[in-house]
């Protein structure tokens, strides 16, 4: 089964956020360039927001991967919700200072002032909606003091929009919204990902009809697409081993796409 034509494509779509897996799509590339330009500007806070699965985390990882070569960048992909821990980790990893005493905001700002970098260090906060209001207020004060530049990501839901307004209305200097992919974008995403791994035959199996169905099922959500394709290629592996005659190599079977969608919960059956 591991030698199957579909086992490699299946593994490609494991839902893991890795900067190396970043696939360049026109719209996302444009967003990424905007983000990079914003980071270069003397802005205090940059907000990256969008619905779940629109690629915010991936973009943040990609930014971290690219920026860390030239400047001090710290990535918090798992939020540290305790304020003391948060400030302590920041002080240690950005400024190389590990105070034994309780870390207050004043103490942190003193440490930050003592250490000078040619460029303001950047901290990337994923899933910022999980931080408390009090901690967000401290983050705002740190960015106001120009000790650290923050790039934060938020889910775009009604509640989180309110959070964004309350905390960052006057603080956010730039905000970038990520959208769900269209059928064409999703096709480019899938095919680029497959071609990158030299899965040419499988990449050619995706026709427009297949993509319409996949987009309709996943609503252009990259995470859901990854999950769906992982299940789909698992199905293909099974059929290749048990009923290889059923496989058509010029197109994906709509039935199997739907079966994969049932398995991943995209279709309730």
């Amino acid at each position, binding site marked *: 089964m591991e030698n199957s034509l579909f086992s490699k494509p299946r593994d490609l779509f494991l839902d893991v956020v890795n900067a190396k897996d970043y696939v360049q799509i026109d719209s996302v590339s444009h967003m990424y360039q905007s983000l990079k330009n914003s980071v270069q500007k003397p802005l205090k806070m940059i907000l990256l927001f969008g619905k779940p699965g629109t690629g915010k985390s991936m973009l943040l990882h990609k930014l971290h991967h690219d920026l860390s070569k030239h400047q001090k960048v710290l990535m918090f992909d798992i939020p540290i919700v305790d304020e003391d821990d948060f400030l302590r980790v920041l002080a240690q990893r950005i400024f190389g200072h590990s105070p034994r005493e309780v870390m207050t905001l004043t103490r942190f700002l003193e440490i930050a002032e003592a250490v000078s970098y040619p460029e303001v260090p950047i901290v990337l906060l994923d899933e910022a909606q999980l931080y408390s209001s009090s901690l967000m207020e401290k983050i705002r004060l740190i960015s106001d003091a120009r000790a650290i530049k923050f790039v934060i990501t938020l889910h775009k839901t009604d509640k989180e929009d309110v959070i964004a307004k309350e905390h960052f209305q006057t603080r956010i200097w730039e905000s970038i919204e990520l959208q769900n992919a269209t059928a064409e974008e999703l096709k480019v995403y899938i095919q680029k990902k497959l071609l990158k791994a030299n899965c040419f035959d499988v990449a050619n199996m995706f026709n427009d009809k297949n993509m319409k169905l996949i987009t309709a099922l996943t609503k252009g959500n990259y995470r859901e697409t990854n999950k769906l394709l992982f*299940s789909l290629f*698992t*199905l293909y592996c*099974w*059929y290749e081993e*048990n009923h290889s005659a059923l496989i058509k190599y010029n197109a994906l079977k709509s*039935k199997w796409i*739907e*079966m994969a969608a*049932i*398995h991943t919960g995209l*279709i309730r*059956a």
Partner: protein
Amino acid sequence: MLDIHKLERRWFKYKVKSYAPYIIGLFVFFLVLIVITPKMKDSDKTEQIVSSENQKSSDAKMANKESSNILEPSMEFLQSFQTSTPLTVTPAAIIPKSVQSPRESIPVPKVLNVPDSSTLKIPASSPSLSSDKTISLNRNDSKLDIDSIERRFKETSNSNLGLFIARYHYDHGNYSDAYNFALKTNSINNKIDESWIIFSKSLVKLGRVEQAKKTLQLYISESNSDAARSLLESIEQGTFK
């Protein structure tokens, strides 16, 4: 590991569910179609029968007309009929005074032997008798139908019915009956061209040409009817057959 067979079963259920509204819609559509089509065929059949029967003869048309007239019977004439004995009295006695002028000088016609419709014996073998369910439009050709119309005429004294019966008898060569019913019709309504013409034609057929001419002349002088004039000319020229 995926349980493919279970997944296939779930997929099948999903497809059935997703197509169910369309299948139900189609089923309902065909059901409606099945219910409606025979009804439409029935109504078409009825229409066809009606149209074919209407075209069969002008008699049938007249009959339909008469049947509609039944709804508004002339009670006045019923009274005049009930008080008179039409088969034995002279027409002069029947004709109301107001309509006397064209008729006063017309030779007094005698009512010929018209068998009373009520006393008519209807042959048992008559196909129309065999079933009461025979549709009304088929009755026009049967003896029973003309009898029933005569009965209705007797009951209602409707001039249209009288004209229809006179025309029927004339067409069937029963000139004495045609004469009698035309006479009765004239006594009810003396302004029906066709009734006077049938009356005159019947007279000619019965060999009473002079009486027919005289009747027509008087009617023409009264009504200035072109049809009557034309008939008179044809009788005088001997071209009437």
